[in-house]
C-alpha cells in the first residue's frame, strides 16, 4: 500500500490497469444486460417490471459499497497518512452519489407500477435518501474549504461520522416494517432468489463494480493533475 504513496507510481499503475478494466467492464455490461433483459424469466408476480431490479439492486449495493470504501479510505488517511487515501475518498464521493441517485430513480420507476406510488416514506427509502444527503454534504465540505489539507482533515471526520448510516440502510428492511422487500441475496442461510435471476444480477454487480473502479482511477488521476496545477499556479504567483 505504502508503495503507491508516490503519485507517479500510482499514475503508472492506473495507466496499465485502465484498458483491461474498461474491456472487462464493457463485456460484463454486455453479458449482464443481455441476460437480464432477454434471457432472465419474467417474475410470476411482477412480470417484466422485474427487469428494473437488475439495474436498481446493483446500483443500491454500489451506493453502500462506495460509501463504505470512502469511510475506509478516510480511516486509512487518518491512521497511516496515506497521501492518496484522501484523494480516493474525494474522488469516490460524486461516483457514489450518482449510484445512489440511480438507485433512487430506478426504484421510483419500479415503485409506480408495483406500489402505485413514486415514493413512499418508509425506512429503506428514507435511509437511502439520507445516504444521498451525506454524499452531498461530504462533497460540499471539499467545496467550502479552500485549503486542500484542511479540507481533507474535515472531510475525513464527516465521512467517518456518516458511516453510521450504512448499517441502518442495510438492515432497515429487517428492523422496520418496510414496504421494500427484504434481503434475498446476502442473507443468513443463502440466497432465496432463483439462479436464473441471480446470475444476471451478480454479473451486473460485477460490471458496476468495475465501472466504479475505472471511474475512480480516472477521477483520482485528474485530482492529482489538479493538485499539480494548483502547486504550479501558486509557485507562479510567488515567482512573480
Amino acid at each position, binding site marked *: 500500500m505504502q508503495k503507491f504513496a508516490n503519485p507517479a507510481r500510482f499514475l503508472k499503475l492506473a495507466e496499465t490497469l485502465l484498458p483491461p478494466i474498461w474491456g472487462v467492464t464493457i463485456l460484463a455490461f454486455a453479458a449482464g444486460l443481455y441476460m437480464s433483459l432477454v434471457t432472465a424469466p419474467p417474475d410470476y408476480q411482477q412480470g417484466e417490471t422485474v427487469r428494473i431490479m437488475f439495474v436498481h439492486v446493483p446500483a443500491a449495493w454500489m451506493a453502500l459499497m462506495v460509501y463504505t470504501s470512502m469511510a475506509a479510505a478516510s480511516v486509512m488517511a487518518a491512521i497511516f497518512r496515506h497521501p492518496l487515501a484522501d484523494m480516493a475518498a474525494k474522488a469516490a464521493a460524486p461516483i457514489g452519489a450518482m449510484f445512489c441517485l440511480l438507485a433512487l430513480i430506478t426504484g421510483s420507476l419500479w415503485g409506480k407500477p408495483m406500489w402505485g406510488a413514486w415514493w413512499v416514506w418508509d425506512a429503506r427509502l428514507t435511509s437511502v435518501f*439520507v445516504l444521498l444527503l451525506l454524499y452531498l*454534504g461530504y462533497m460540499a465540505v471539499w467545496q*467550502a474549504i479552500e485549503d486542500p489539507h484542511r479540507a481533507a482533515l*474535515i472531510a475525513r*471526520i464527516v465521512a467517518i461520522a456518516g458511516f453510521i448510516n450504512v448499517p441502518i440502510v442495510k438492515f432497515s428492511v429487517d428492523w422496520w416494517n418496510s414496504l421494500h422487500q427484504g434481503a434475498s441475496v446476502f442473507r443468513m442461510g443463502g440466497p432465496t432468489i432463483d439462479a436464473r435471476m441471480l446470475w444476471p444480477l451478480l454479473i451486473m454487480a460485477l460490471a458496476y463494480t468495475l465501472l466504479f473502479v475505472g471511474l475512480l482511477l480516472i477521477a483520482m488521476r485528474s485530482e492529482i493533475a489538479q493538485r499539480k496545477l494548483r502547486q504550479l499556479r501558486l509557485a507562479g504567483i510567488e515567482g512573480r
Partner: protein
Amino acid sequence: MKLIWALIRRDLTLATRQGGGAGTAIGFFVTVIVLLPLGLGPDQALLQRIAPGALWIALLLSVLLSAERIFQADYEDGSLDAMALGVVPLELVVLAKAMAHWLTTSLPLAVVAPLFGFLINLDPQDILPLWLAMILGSIFLSLLAALGAAITVALRRGGLLVSLLILPFYVPCLIFGVAASRASELVQPSLLILTALVLASFVLVPVAAAAALRAYLK
C-alpha cells in the same frame, strides 16, 4: 471538573449578558409555528394530527440556527487557542460548550415548545410525552450542533453547510422523538432509543468535534 464548570459558567454568563441567545431562538420557533397554520390552512383536525411533528421540526431548525455561535466567537478572538493549550482536553471543552449551548438554547426551547403547541391545537394528552421526549432529545440536538459548528468554525458562510451536514444526523432523533411524543404504547421504547442516541453522541461527538477543531487551530 472545576475547570469544566468554569467553562460552562463562562458561556452562560456570556449568553445572558449578550442577550439574543434563547430569546431569539424562541422567537424564531414561535414564528415557524405561526407560519404553519397560515400555510396549511386553519383546519383544527389536520393541525392536531401534525402538531407533534411540526413542533419537532421547528425545534430542530431553531437549534441548528443557533449552532454557528457555539465556537465561532471563541475561534475568532483566539480564546479557543488558549482553551486548546490549557489543561482541559479539547474533547471536554467541546462537551462543556455543547452543554452550555443546551442550557442556554435547546433546553429553554424544549421547555416552552409544548406550550406553543396550543397555537396548533396540540392534543393535551400528548403534552407530557412530548415534553419528556423534547427535553431528552434536545441534548442530542445540542451535541450534534456542536459537531456541525466545529466542522464549519472558520468558514465565512458556514450556516448553510451546518444544516446540510447535520440535518441528516437529526433524522433518527426526529423519527423517535415524534414517535415518543404521541400518547401510545410506542412512548417507552422510543424514549429508550432517544436515550441511547444521547449517550452515544455524548461519547462520540466530543472526539469528532475536537478533531475538527484541531484541524482548524493548526
